[in-house]
């Protein structure tokens, strides 16, 4: 698994090899060729372990093409429930000849290498255990159609791994049944290969390594879901009415999930007519334009995109901000700048999103960090957008969005929609001095009317040009300044409405950690490791911009505060410093930007190093 190990490696001490079995605490890496259907095999394995009650997490490292290039799937099995990526591989499924050597080199001593018997290794190792499998033969014996053979081959490793680790075959079967939606033919074919492989292993190989799984009771009632699906689900629960989008990895699967779930959730079961419109546009500018038009006319409108698409939306976001049109933009971040690494994760759009658009703009930005938050921010974003009459950006990332995560089941949203200050024709009657951009409540948020409102006073011309409180074109310096001052006031109101940070306190902590989004599992795990090494940390997870008072208080408490993030420039660290200049010097940036999800080890090492430097 070259692409992971090169950054940092944690070789296990060799004497470890002598000791006891290692149960429910290792990573499996399946190295395959993309487009070969290995995703099914990987998901089946992961699900089976999950259903045995053992915490798992899966990360798919795939290339930016369709077929034929190396791909890796990492399943972390963790009795302690840790779900962050780790740099070590204990069990390698070496099913790709092209990367076999590098993959093998990345195994820990004492690790396991499961591979087709025709895969060649240039430098075979003596400190790992090899389990060669007669893949061709087993596939041939399966009687599978010639064009399905590549696909079926992956089932061989499912069987072998199941046998070697002791995965419950019933759970494998259940996972296959679920995957094939109960269709008996493919289930039988695939499960047949799994069983045959398991039997072959039992008959021909003897287990010499130390890894195995044992049932636990830690995942009962939990679900497995990816963040993009959770977000789509949440948005549909939140009354999303217009979704305009343009395909771009890794946001595409958000809209795919929406397209799949929407008919179940929101179509008329009899007529098939829908209470939503999902529209694929010609580009991201049009997608942005459509949601601005729809938001203005009263829809709960959203789009989903990633870096390059976000860049194209700048002009429209500047308009929506200034004309005060609610709309929601999900930015499922991938690695930039530019086209960058479309299939790798990053938190590199924080500043672009916050300051998006020319002129003086700063936006409401949400950072989901869990599956539940992906779901909840799916509808919360609309509430905030309509309450604040402004674009709301939700910054997810490829890791959150496209990988499968364990989660508590989502709960049915009980809070009613917040549709914000919208005046019907009758309500408008009560307002003597209404103006579309007039701050009647002192919170910077004006009242709006929707096209179609028959009250003769309701109509106004929305625009991106200077206007007074009555939406009338104006170049007067005072009109402009007052309007911007009101928008600043509104931004301060936003500060009080956005989700507050989550704090994991420790009374004995002497340093603070700040993080956000997908790095949460790594930071939590790092906190535990640091504690074991005698460093007590308090942890604040930011969930939204603009930043607010909780954060200032947190900064006030610790002399050194580490801001952990997946980007090159420490973007959130910059915003934290700006939020509280008096504490700016306390802020240290812990960051890495190589396209891989954060590891606890990196956080631990970075903080240990910095703390030691401090002491010396």
């Amino acid at each position, binding site marked *: 698994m070259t692409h992971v190990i090169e950054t940092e490696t944690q070789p296990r001490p060799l004497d470890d090899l002598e000791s006891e079995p290692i149960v429910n605490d290792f990573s499996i890496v399946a190295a395959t060729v993309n487009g070969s259907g290995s995703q099914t095999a990987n998901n089946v394995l992961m699900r089976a372990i999950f259903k045995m009650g053992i915490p798992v997490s899966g990360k798919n490292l795939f290339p930016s093409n369709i077929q034929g290039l190396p791909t890796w799937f990492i399943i972390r099995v963790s009795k302690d429930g840790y779900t962050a990526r780790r740099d070590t591989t204990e069990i390698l499924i070496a099913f790709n000849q092209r990367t076999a050597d590098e993959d093998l080199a990345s195994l820990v001593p004492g690790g396991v290498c499961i591979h087709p018997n025709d895969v060649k290794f240039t430098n075979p190792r003596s400190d790992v255990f090899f389990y060669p499998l007669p893949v061709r033969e087993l596939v041939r014996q399966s009687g599978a159609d010639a064009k399905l053979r590549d696909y079926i081959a992956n089932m061989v490793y499912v069987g072998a791994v199941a046998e070697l680790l002791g995965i419950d075959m019933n759970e494998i079967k259940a996972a296959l049944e679920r995957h094939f939606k109960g269709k008996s033919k493919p289930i039988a074919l695939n499960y047949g290969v799994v069983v045959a492989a398991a039997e072959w292993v039992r008959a021909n190989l003897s287990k010499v390594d130390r890894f195995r799984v044992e049932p636990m009771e830690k995942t009962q009632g939990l679900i497995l879901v990816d963040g993009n699906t959770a977000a789509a689900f949440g948005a549909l*629960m939140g009354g999303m009415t217009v979704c305009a989008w343009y395909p771009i990895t890794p946001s595409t699967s958000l809209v795919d999930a929406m397209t799949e779930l929407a008919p179940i959730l929101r179509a008329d079961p009899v007529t098939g007519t829908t209470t939503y419109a999902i529209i694929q546009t010609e580009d991201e500018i049009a997608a942005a334009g459509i949601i601005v*038009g729809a938001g203005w006319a009263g829809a*709960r409108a959203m789009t989903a995109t990633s870096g390059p698409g976000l860049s194209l939306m700048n002009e429209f976001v500047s308009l929506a901000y200034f*004309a005060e049109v609610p709309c929601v933009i999900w930015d499922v971040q991938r690695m930039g700048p530019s086209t960058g690494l479309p299939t790798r994760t990053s938190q590199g759009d924080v500043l672009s999103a916050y300051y998006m658009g020319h002129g003086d703009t700063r936006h409401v930005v949400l950072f989901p960090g869990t599956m539940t938050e992906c779901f909840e921010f799916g509808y919360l974003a609309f509430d905030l957008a309509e309450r604040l009459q402004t674009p709301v950006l939700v910054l997810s990332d490829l890791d959150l969005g496209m990988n499968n995560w364990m989660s508590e089941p989502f709960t049915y949203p009980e809070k009613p929609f917040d549709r914000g200050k919208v005046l019907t024709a009758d309500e408008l009657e009560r307002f003597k001095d209404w103006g579309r951009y007039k701050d009647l409540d002192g919170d910077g948020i004006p009242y709006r009317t*929707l096209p179609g409102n028959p009250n003769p006073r309701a109509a106004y011309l929305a625009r991106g040009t200077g206007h007074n409180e009555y939406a009338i074109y104006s170049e007067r310096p005072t009109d402009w300044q007052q309007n911007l001052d009101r928008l600043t006031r509104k931004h301060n109101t936003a500060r009080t409405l956005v989700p507050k940070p989550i704090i994991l306190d420790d009374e004995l902590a002497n340093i603070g950690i700040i993080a956000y989004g997908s790095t949460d599992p790594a930071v939590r795990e790092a906190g535990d490791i640091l504690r074991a090494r005698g460093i007590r940390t308090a942890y604040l997870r930011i969930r939204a911009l603009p930043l607010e008072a909780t954060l200032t208080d947190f900064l006030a408490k610790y002399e050194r505060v580490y801001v952990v993030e997946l980007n090159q420039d420490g973007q959130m660290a910059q915003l934290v410093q700006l939020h509280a200049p008096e504490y700016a010097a306390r802020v240290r940036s812990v960051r890495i930007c190589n396209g891989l999800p954060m590891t606890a080890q990196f956080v631990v090492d970075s903080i240990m190093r910095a703390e030691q430097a401090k002491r010396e």
Partner: protein
Amino acid sequence: MTVETKTNGKPHVNRIGLTSQDYRGGETTLCQGCGHNSITSQIIAAAFELSLAPHQVIKMSGIGCSSKTPAYFMSRSFGFNTLHGRMPSVTTGAVLANRTLLAIGISGDGDTGSIGLGQFKHMVRRNVPVVYIVENNGVYGLTKGQFSATADVGQTLKYAGTNVLPPIDICIEALAADCGFVARSFAGDAKQVRELLKAAMSFHGTAVIDIISPCVTFNNHHDSTKSYDYGKAHEERLQDIQFIPRFDEVHIDYDEGDERYVQLHDGPMIKLRKLGRDYDPTNKWHAIELLERARQNHEFITGLLYINTQRQTLHETMHLTSTPLAYLSEEELRPSRERFERVMQRFM
């Protein structure tokens, strides 16, 4: 047709009891004599005559002198003066959100032909219901006289010199994108503009009207093909057009050879009386050929170039519920617990 006249001192009112005055907007800030102002007047007249309910109309525009005009008509209607070249997408969003709105879009030749060409074509392709008016002066008015993409080859402008690039023909572009209503007119031809506007406002789907609208400040010299003089001298009407609303009692004169009636969706009709040449406005290829020839020979042909009432509109292809999405209640929008559970089961 009804036009505003005073009867017994009382202002003339239309079917919904409004006067022509009720369809006016703010005072224009365009140059005196600008073609765009004439078009504004005809929009007011057409809306009044059709008895449009102002609150059901949305006035959409991009950026430019032309795009400012929504401020100058129908101040009782909502409107959105959007971004340069991006009115098509904003309009698409607005009519998706509320399918009962009648969208009147105003654009310029720079707005539609240069920066907005992509959006324009894709809007047409989707058949977004909108009356899409291009106030075409061959020049960027608001930024003071650069060539737009519709400027004819060989035209000269004070600062920009001589144009050497072939013009984009808005009507050909609309036709290539399968537009169901394509017309060209001239700001100096008030009646034709008005009749075409009424027809377009009654059409279901994208109706494109490319109106040559002289810029008196930057592109009105005699030798400009976008000038008043040129237009007056060279306009060749394809037909004499009359819009016949459903509520009118008309005597349909089947003088077949000379007149032709096109039935619109909910009853109204367009009466086309033949002028110089035989022309069938339902044949797309002929329309394109006519326009290609006109482009090459610098002919200025106006009228209804193409009409096809068969294409499904965006709303139809999307199977939207009949209530405007924007007005659905929380009960209608939030899925039931049963549906919620059905989806949750998938993740178990």
